[in-house]
């Protein structure tokens, strides 16, 4: 755990402790405010999932991050802890193809159901044609 000046706490976690720490943040640290969840594609070093939660009363900002192994796309869900994780994880699945295990309704949210590929992956070219317009 390391503190970054003026940007709260950042905690880097192994994938297995993602949910466990999420519960700790919510119950023990009082981080009830779910701000956002997203990912970064580090190419051959795998995908990284980030989640920012806050304790508004104590002005505590906590960024959780976990790195998935290269080629791996499964990450545990946080939806049972935060209802806000529902749409954010769906967006993350839509854009990066990260499968959130345990999410009750994991389907694409911004793109259509028949979209191929995950646009925010680094190997997805900007000019990739979409099926009906190929």
């Amino acid at each position: 755990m390391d503190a970054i000046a003026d940007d709260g706490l950042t905690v880097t976690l192994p994938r297995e402790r993602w949910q466990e720490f999420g519960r700790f943040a919510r119950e023990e640290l009082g981080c009830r405010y779910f701000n956002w969840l997203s990912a970064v594609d580090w190419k051959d070093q795998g995908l990284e999932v980030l989640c920012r939660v806050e304790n508004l009363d104590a002005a505590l900002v906590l960024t959780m991050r976990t790195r998935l192994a290269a080629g791996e796309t499964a990450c545990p869900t946080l939806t049972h802890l935060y209802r806000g994780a529902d749409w954010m994880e769906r967006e993350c699945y839509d854009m990066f193809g990260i499968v959130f295990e345990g999410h009750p309704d994991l389907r694409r949210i911004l793109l259509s159901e028949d979209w191929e590929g995950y646009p925010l992956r680094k190997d997805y070219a900007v000019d990739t044609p979409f099926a009906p317009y190929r």
Partner: protein
Amino acid sequence: MPETQTKQVVEVGYGGNERLMMNMGPQHPSSHGVFRMILTLEGETVVAVDAVIGYLHRCHEKLGETLTYVQYPSIASKTDYVAAMTSELAYVSAVEKIGKFEVPRRAQYLRVVAAELQRIASHCLWLGTWCLDMGGALGGGATVFLYCIREREMVLDRFEELTGARLLYGFHQIGGTRYDAPPGWDKKVRETVDFIEARIDEYEAMLDDNTFFRVRTQGVGVISRELAQEVGVSGPLIRGSGVSYDVRRAEPYSSYQDFDFVVPVETAGDCYARYRVRMVEFRQSIRIVRQALDGLPEGPISSRPGVKSVGQVRVPKGEGYTRVEGARGEVGCYIVSDGGPKPYRMKWRGASFSNLAVLPHIVPGHKVADVVAIMGSVDPVFGEVDR
């Protein structure tokens, strides 16, 4: 739609308790954009909502990775096009934070004036269209709409004098602002806010004393304090649910610590509470505009000399998240820089996206007509939801 959704469409019967699936949108007039809700009804009562978004998706985050730091701010305004000033500000603040660019005090004050005027303009549009949605109850409803649009036009005229544009401004740039206030502009802004301040009393007289308005908004669409935090709503929604959270207070940016203003909080969490919060915000924004104009320092408006090529602004390796208080709540931008002229990764935290995510939790149990009132009180802008 996946299989499971399409299969349970209609269960027709005459027993009186059959369920009906109804489609609302994406071209429904009350959606103020393109938004589809699949409502499951029992009679007039909504029992489940499936919100379908993404009709306006342009993948701004991928665009941000392909455009340089100099090119992107003018595109940033197209996320939340009703409050373009604050979305630009979110992007340039994030770049300034990672790149450690100084912003001169005059530019900081000009940004505050622009952001607060934008909040007034955005709230005007929200109030007008929301009242139009609930039209029948308000004696036609178009009255408030036309008044609000008139006031919004005055603010847009001020923006036109400042930037030359009325909707998408390109006012902010990394290290300051692109334009300085033209001579005599502050006097016109003062006249505008004086005029609007008097008009807000009129809106309140029209709405607060209207029994139909109160019936349609009080106790409707209640967001509990707990739910508001868990879903991550922000702006007037979370303040209407009893949480005093305002980015301008929690993490002052752009000299907001210099100004004296009140963060309104209501505890009821219903549509009426959100309306009350926004009405107070109108007046607080006017207060901040006056203070900023009074204290507007002299000096340069940008710390960065003009560039000849768009690739010349480079940001050192690093990452950062910056948030600003937009008209709809926390607008944030997370940027990862690899040292090049473009961000490696850019994420928008759209206030409308998180605010809209609360709909499936609060709509069930209400009548179909209330769906319109609730959605209006959330004030989503679909450019920002879909990005």
